[in-house]
């Protein structure tokens, strides 16, 4: 989550000199406003003379004094914002992980690059917010009737560059092909004043991520294969810290139903017991919720053993995703082997874990993946 934010902030802070085209590159309008997760700019140029829509949750209206304020397209933007704030990646994972575990390695058919993108490094996707740029355009040639005004020529209709955003909500995003956002935007009325609506939509790159920044389709001109591969590389570098050698080994921990994820450093434990206690403590607040009791009193009542029951008994199982992308039950292999292969942890409801069986260390790399994928 943070990367996109960071990126946006950097941009926002760059200085703005004047409403001329050059500023566009620096994006900065001197705005220090928050752009939540760099989302969604549902900006588009439409015929009503309104320039881009700003997706910012705030009242922030683009621009320097005298420029047109963009209207907002509330359906898209606010909806996105709300959802995105609350649920960074989580909603995607439970439904997606199961499937994606089996296809971690980029299951891609001709049409569905979007899915693989959601699996791969969505959060790593860093787009940048073009809306500011479009706004600048508007100032430069604020007469939307003649996009080619001003000596800047270019930017035909202003619309070209902006596009924006991708999705309505993470949930929707996950299930939507990459092409869909394009359709969504294209539903907007075309400019009738001669300005063509250059509906470009996001995702030139791996934008399964709800946090993807707004981008122009197809810009910069890089093959998606390259973008995905690089995103996967950096993800690997992030998560699997040391291969040999010491150093923290942080892996994400997901729990079904929890609104956010946690991270644990596997190297701080030396046995499965220690790990499971730690997990219980970490997620006790959620299990308490499940039990229907709240507060510290509740915590005391729920002893460790009770929690264990919850976690290891009928309610939950702890699973992990290994190097091959398979979801395995925790506890089968020696601890040292486990920490070398574990990429992330997931605490699932038992009902969802049907199909996961204790596996032998040597597993076949055949179609078992699919079973597990659906089982998760």
């Amino acid at each position: 989550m943070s990367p996109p934010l960071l990126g946006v902030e950097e941009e926002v802070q760059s200085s703005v000199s004047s409403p001329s085209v050059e500023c566009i590159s620096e994006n900065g309008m001197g705005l220090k406003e928050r752009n939540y997760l760099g989302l969604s700019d549902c900006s588009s140029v439409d015929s009503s003379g309104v320039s881009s829509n700003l997706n910012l949750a705030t009242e922030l209206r683009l621009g320097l004094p005298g420029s047109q304020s963009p209207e907002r397209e509330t359906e898209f933007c606010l909806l996105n914002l709300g959802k995105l704030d609350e649920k960074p990646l989580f909603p995607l994972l439970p439904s997606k992980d199961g499937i994606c575990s089996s296809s971690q390695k980029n299951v891609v058919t001709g049409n569905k690059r979007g899915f693989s993108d959601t699996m791969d490094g969505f959060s790593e996707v860093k787009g940048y917010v073009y809306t500011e740029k479009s706004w600048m355009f508007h100032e430069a040639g604020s007469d939307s009737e003649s996009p080619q005004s001003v000596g800047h020529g270019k930017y035909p209709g202003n619309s070209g560059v902006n596009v924006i955003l991708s999705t309505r909500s993470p949930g929707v995003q996950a299930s939507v092909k990459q092409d869909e956002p394009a359709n969504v935007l294209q539903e907007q009325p075309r400019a009738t004043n001669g300005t063509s609506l250059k509906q470009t939509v996001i995702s030139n790159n791996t934008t399964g991520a709800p946090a993807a920044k707004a981008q122009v389709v197809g810009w910069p001109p890089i093959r998606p294969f390259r973008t995905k591969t690089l995103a996967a590389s950096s993800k690997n570098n992030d998560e699997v810290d040391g291969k040999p050698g010491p150093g923290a080994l942080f892996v994400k921990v997901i729990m079904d139903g929890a609104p956010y994820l946690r991270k644990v450093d596997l190297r701080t434990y030396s046995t499965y017991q220690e790990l499971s206690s730690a997990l219980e403590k970490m997620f006790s607040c959620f299990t308490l919720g499940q039990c229907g009791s709240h507060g510290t009193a509740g915590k005391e009542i729920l002893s460790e053993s009770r929690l264990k029951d919850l976690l290891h008994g009928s309610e939950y199982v702890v699973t992990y995703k290994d190097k091959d992308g398979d979801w395995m039950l925790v506890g089968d292999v020696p601890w040292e082997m486990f920490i070398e292969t574990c990429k992330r942890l997931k605490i699932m409801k038992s009902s969802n874990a049907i199909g996961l069986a204790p596996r032998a260390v040597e597993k076949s790399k055949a179609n078992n993946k699919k079973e597990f994928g659906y089982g998760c």
Partner: protein
Amino acid sequence: MNYFPDEVLEHVFDFITSHKDRNSVSLVCKSWYKIERYSRQRVFIGNCYSISPERLIARFPGLKSLTLKGKPHFADFNLVPHDWGGFVYPWIEALAKSRIGLEELRLKRMVVSDESLELLSKSFVNFKSLVLVSCEGFTTDGLAAIAANCRFLRELDLQENEVDDHRGHWLSCFPESCTSLISLNFACLRGEVNLGALERLVSRSPNLKSLRLNRAVPLDTLQKLLMRAPQLVDLGIGSYVHDPFSEAYNKLKIAIQRCKSIRSLSGFLEVAPHCMSAIYPICGNLTFLNLSYAPGLHGNKLMKLIQHCRKLQRLWILDCIGDKGLGVVALTCKELQELRVFPSDPFEAGNAAVTEEGLVLVSAGCPKLNSLLYFCQQMTNAALITVAKNCPNFIRFRLCILDPIKPDPVTNQPLDEGFGAIVQSCKGLKRLSLSGLLTDQVFLYIGMYAEQLEMLSIAFAADSDKGMLYVLNGCKKLRKLEIRDCPFGDAALLEDVGKYETMRSLWMSSCEVTLGGCKSVAEKMPSLNVEIIDESEQMEFNLDDKQKVDKMYLYRTLVGHRKDAPEYVWIL
């Protein structure tokens, strides 16, 4: 020439290998046409919809090697829907039916299904070479079929394809009797491979010259493979992560030193930068180095590596090399001809680490530079003018400023003069991609000076129709023109429709051309297919001629409208 028997002419024609020359030869007279067509073994088709497989087979019954390209270039950037077209199956089917002795198939931007691969593997006994670049639609099952059935397979080269990876077992499908492999490249596969099968395959392939591994091949396997194949010329390393103090690393060092023939190195999909010193012994011989998928390698480690590569002719790198790193390249790689600098963080606009300075340094230090792909933060006219002076030999010049309409940051001017200098100085320029703030002026320069230009890519540029007209009028050798987000409308499109018949294709998206304009072209030029790609369903409801067209792709063809277009493609 009438005095020579056909066999003699055929023998003479054998020495003519370039497609262009053979095409010219076939136009001389009927008898030359006949001799040429029967003796032709290699055919290149730049647009698979310009001709049909049947006509191809009819003309060239001796066909052994076919190269096909499918989708337009902008499909690489998600501007073309995935199922637009470019299916290879009908071609393979037709070739198989006609008993063509196909030995080599090279495809780019085509949709290749597992069925196609299976049919391919079973239909051509002497099939030797499969090269797939930027294709999609197949899985490792299709590769398994190729491995299992092509008994004389020499080359399996997969470059940047989207492959649905079902893991591992396809490599085991190479039979024990397969010992003919010369080139194996599966770097783009994301799944595990059967390492034992890989080792055995390499062991029994004494002619193996090119091996590019994917990320799933770990270091210790790499070391074993190198021990078995010291004759390698081209190596792609998958994973290069290990402990510099380990036994595996020592063994690797020894193994690498034995590989005295390696001239080309790529991969490093996962890399531990502190272990690059094992590579130094072979750096001195390298002519091609591709580190464009190795974001883990940067800073001093990268520079040190480069400093060992004095014979480098082609370098593909990420922009984390920085201007400073490019300075090191300029000092070290005096033989450099091709440089590609890719963005490591394309959507984080503030982070591109190279600017015009790096390019100027390279141009000054590497006078043989003739091919460039450069993604950068910014560019200035002064820099471009300097580069043009330093390197007049450019054949390909592709500049991508990450902010597509950024002017010269020093002068605030458009980059017209800079690109103008490039086209004026580089008289052999064949391919040009523009970016940055540009007006009609740059197109005037291009029209005036870029006489050899064959391919031009334009985005977010120009002020008016004049820009496009300058280019269409001036560039006589233009074959491919692709335009996005420019204010070119019907006036420019319709000015000289005959020109499009001299070109392979024209792509215009997010421009000002209207449906009426496109219809007009289609009417006047029956030899062109004019396709409108519109996924928004607007075309169904609103067929107003004045409506702007989102994406138009037109190309010359001898076989009329294609039958496999999806519903959102209208062929006028």
